[in-house]
């Protein structure tokens, strides 16, 4: 029998606000000692009250808008009551029945060519809890993470394969970075993901019991864990066994899923309105302020790059992985005012390499889009040859000097003077009688070697086409 997987993802996105959601503690405690970014409010001391950090609401509005969700004018905070040592108040402040946004979807263009639309069934703001660690028979608690702002976003059961699930996370990560609302680093738990997985015969319209996979903290892990679970469920069903609603934990090192606890009944969290916070009102004025600089989204920009500039899908995809890179590309293209594909090649090959090597983002480069356009122009005009042009990209980045200045200072301008080149070529030919003989004897591939000798003599500045022409003449 052929099966299809039914997958829904529950993600928690850690927002990159300066301070926590309800107090003035620093939000990001990555790498800091335990319990150093805490205060009476986020450790749940008696008598404290939460005060909403407005930046959290603003970032949620950005994400909701990007997900095509409707932003509620009035939403509410609720208490989710449960006991856990790293939950200092004994309840989590979250949004339950009137969250900040309703509905929404994300389109996933798949490498195979189709697009999967994933619906969003929940999008709300909440606070994070602390971290518990077991050591030497003790339970150690770090409250640094308490009150770190999160957006919880849950998809419908709309994903059909482990690859689609991975693609969702890739696109989500791209989107949150694009919007500037989260660092989106899964290894640092900026995006956390639980996956609900079930299978059914292909084409069936019912849902089977699902399992929930927790603790998957990279995109590869999500893909692997889901694929593993799909295979397990198929084996179980084929063997005539039932699927139980287990909660599973992904052990990344061993590559196996472990059963955590059975989850047949939902806990009662006794939700009720948080009386310590006023309703969150996002009126038109505030909303338009938040959305004033709302960017073109990655998929829209990707489509536009293909339509407007005639770029291949491959180029458009790479150029839109990060907002800064796509902005860079467009600025360079505008400054260059020529063939979009030519600029794309330079960005994808030279600029991207530089970014990767140096761990920079495109907006941090000293080779500004304008400088890049100048460099390409210098190559176009033959002032420098291509390899000098590529070297220039690095030199400009290293020095911050304008490309032309470097060309002048270092004498990098291409030697195209036929007389000078002819003299050098003659010298090379004269100095290598053996090779000349071989060439004339039919080994014409040696032309490349001769060109290389001339280039070396000119420290790379010779116009290779011109050199080849002269050499053929001399050797001919």
């Amino acid at each position: 029998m052929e099966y299809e997987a039914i997958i829904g993802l529950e993600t928690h996105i850690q927002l990159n606000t300066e301070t926590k959601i309800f107090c003035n503690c620093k939000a990001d405690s990555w790498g800091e000692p335990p319990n150093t970014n805490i205060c009476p409010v986020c450790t749940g001391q008696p008598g404290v009250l939460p005060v909403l950090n407005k930046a959290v609401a603003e970032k949620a509005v950005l994400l909701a808008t990007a997900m095509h969700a409707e932003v509620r004018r009035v939403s509410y905070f609720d208490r989710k009551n449960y006991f856990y040592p790293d939950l200092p108040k004994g309840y989590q402040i979250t949004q339950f029945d009137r969250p900040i946004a309703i509905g929404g979807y994300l389109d996933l263009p798949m490498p195979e060519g189709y697009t999967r639309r994933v619906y969003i069934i929940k999008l709300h703001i909440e606070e994070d809890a602390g971290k518990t660690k077991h050591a030497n028979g003790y339970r150690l608690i770090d409250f640094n993470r308490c009150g770190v702002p999160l957006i919880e976003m849950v998809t419908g059961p709309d994903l059909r394969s482990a690859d689609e699930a991975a693609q969702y996370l890739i696109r989500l990560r791209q989107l949150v970075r694009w919007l500037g609302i989260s660092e989106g680093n899964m290894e640092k738990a900026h995006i956390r993901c639980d996956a609900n997985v079930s299978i059914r015969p292909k084409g069936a319209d019912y849902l089977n019991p699902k399992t929930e996979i927790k603790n998957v903290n990279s995109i590869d892990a999500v893909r692997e864990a889901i694929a593993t679970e799909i295979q397990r469920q198929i084996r179980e069903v084929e063997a005539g066994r039932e699927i139980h609603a287990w909660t599973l934990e992904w052990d990344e090192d061993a590559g196996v899923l472990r059963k955590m606890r059975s989850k047949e009944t939902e806990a009662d969290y006794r939700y009720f309105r948080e009386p310590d916070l006023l309703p969150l009102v996002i009126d038109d004025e505030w909303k338009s302020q938040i959305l004033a600089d709302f960017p073109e989204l990655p998929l829209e920009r990707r489509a536009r790059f293909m339509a407007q500039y005639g770029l291949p899908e491959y180029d458009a995809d790479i150029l839109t992985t990060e907002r800064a890179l796509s902005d860079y590309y467009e600025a360079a293209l505008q400054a260059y005012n020529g063939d979009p594909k030519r600029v794309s090649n330079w960005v994808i090959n030279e600029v991207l390499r530089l970014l990767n090597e140096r761990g920079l983002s495109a907006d941090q480069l000293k080779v500004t889009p304008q400088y890049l356009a100048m460099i390409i122009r210098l190559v176009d005009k033959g002032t420098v040859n291509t390899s000098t042009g590529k070297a220039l990209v690095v030199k400009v980045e290293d020095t911050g000097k304008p490309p032309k200045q470097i060309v002048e200072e270092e004498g990098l301008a291409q030697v195209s003077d036929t007389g000078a080149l002819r003299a050098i070529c003659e010298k090379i030919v004269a100095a290598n009688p053996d090779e000349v003989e071989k060439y004339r004897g039919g080994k014409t591939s040696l032309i490349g070697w001769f060109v290389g000798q001339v280039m070396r003599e000119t420290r790379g500045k010779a116009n290779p086409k011109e050199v080849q022409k002269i050499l053929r003449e001399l050797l001919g």
Partner: protein
Amino acid sequence: MMELLRMEAHEIAAAVRAGKLSAREVLEATLEHIASVDGIPGSIGDDPEAEPDKIHAFITLTAERARAQADAVDAKIVAGEDPGPLAGVPFTVKDIFVVEGTPSTAGSRILANYIGPYTATPVERMEAAGGVMLGKVNLDEFTFGSSSESSAFKPTPRNPWDTSRVPGGSSGGSAAAVAAGEGWLSLGTDTAGSIRQPAAFCGVVGLKPTYGRVSRYGLIAFGSSLDTPGPIARSVRDAALMLHVIAGRDPHDATSAAAPVPEYLAALEKDVRGLRVGLSPDYFRIVRAEGGELVEEPLPAEIKQAVLDTAERLANMGVEIVEDVPMPHNRYGIPAYFVIARVEAASNLHRYDGVKYGYRTPDRVADMREMYRKSRGQGFGLQPKLRILMGMYVSAAQYSERYYQRALQVRTLIRRDFEAVFDPEGKYRLDALLTPTTPTAAFPMGAVYGDSVLMQYADQLTVAANHAGVPGISVPVTTDADGLPLGVQLLGRDFDEATLLRLARAVEEGAAFTAKV
């Protein structure tokens, strides 16, 4: 010394600011008086019957801290600076407020060892205004009660008018302290009447401001949507003075209001002529559920008469008295309160789990759950446990619609009662309602305690203001046949404490009542 103690707080502040009295001198006189009347402070496991003729208002007397504050006030005077409107006025704080460096116990074993790491906003404001904090006074455990007897700290406060009687509650230590001259002012809290009822029982003035008027930051929460900090004082003027200091927006409390804070003392000078004050038959009876039936009981004649006499005196001052004002949903105030306050309380008490601070069971435990169960089981007294049980029950998913959501609807209806009678375009156009504060005078110790439901009905005349968020004030007007004080209550419009205080001042002026001290 008694002469000094009989001065009003605004007179003390004026004398200190003028250099006629030193803050230290005022403080030492007060401390001496406390030493003579208060007896042993409440402590865990002590004898509830100890020193039955003393007041026992305090849990923690912070004399050295107070001396440092008084000296700082005096130093400012010497330096030519103004220490503020409460210059040198000793005050007490209900031990439901967290104060940095002092035990902040909520009257519970579970917080008996808790030292505050920060200071509650209203306390901070009083200290910044030159007030001198004497210490923390006793209360019902987590404010759950109307007699202060449920405190884990024994002996619990006694009524200065008759120490065999309760001072009321939950701000019983506050009212008893102020009535007995142990400090001029006390910061209390009112969730269903917890400022007004003890004020009435002890013959002092108790003001529950509008919800949001005074910051709750640092108030250990009971029913967060109802809790309101407010002043207890020996005179309306002193209550006005204190309210002005503690009122106003606080960035630490999202529910605190940005409404401007008027000059309350100046408002007292205005004439009450032409103000409209209503009397409601719904405040002259107690309605309670008994075996599924609603039982209606009229108030004792003395209580009703005190209100009618007050109305007559106000009428003589030119106030228009409007009779037969309907407040039809007042009778549902208690049942709705049972549900809402308990749901909020159960959740607010979640944090006391033995993990981070407070009481943790010394017993060996097998696991986390047992640690929770034992710590909470041993740390909480009967009243918190009752509230947790009921709060958990009525907020459970399957009952929430039936109880909690309905209670919230009732609350809206109660609010509408007030909106209707205060509507300037409406039929009644009231500036205030005049009602009794309590259905009885102070009851004997041990009398009603333990009967939780009946005790709660004592709040029927006060709780509606908490549901609606409107301000209310209790003013002592007379004494009953047993010589116990009786108070009347004025309920007013949102954020219009100024009018309320103005009327309260008129009531106080006309009343034949002499303070205990």
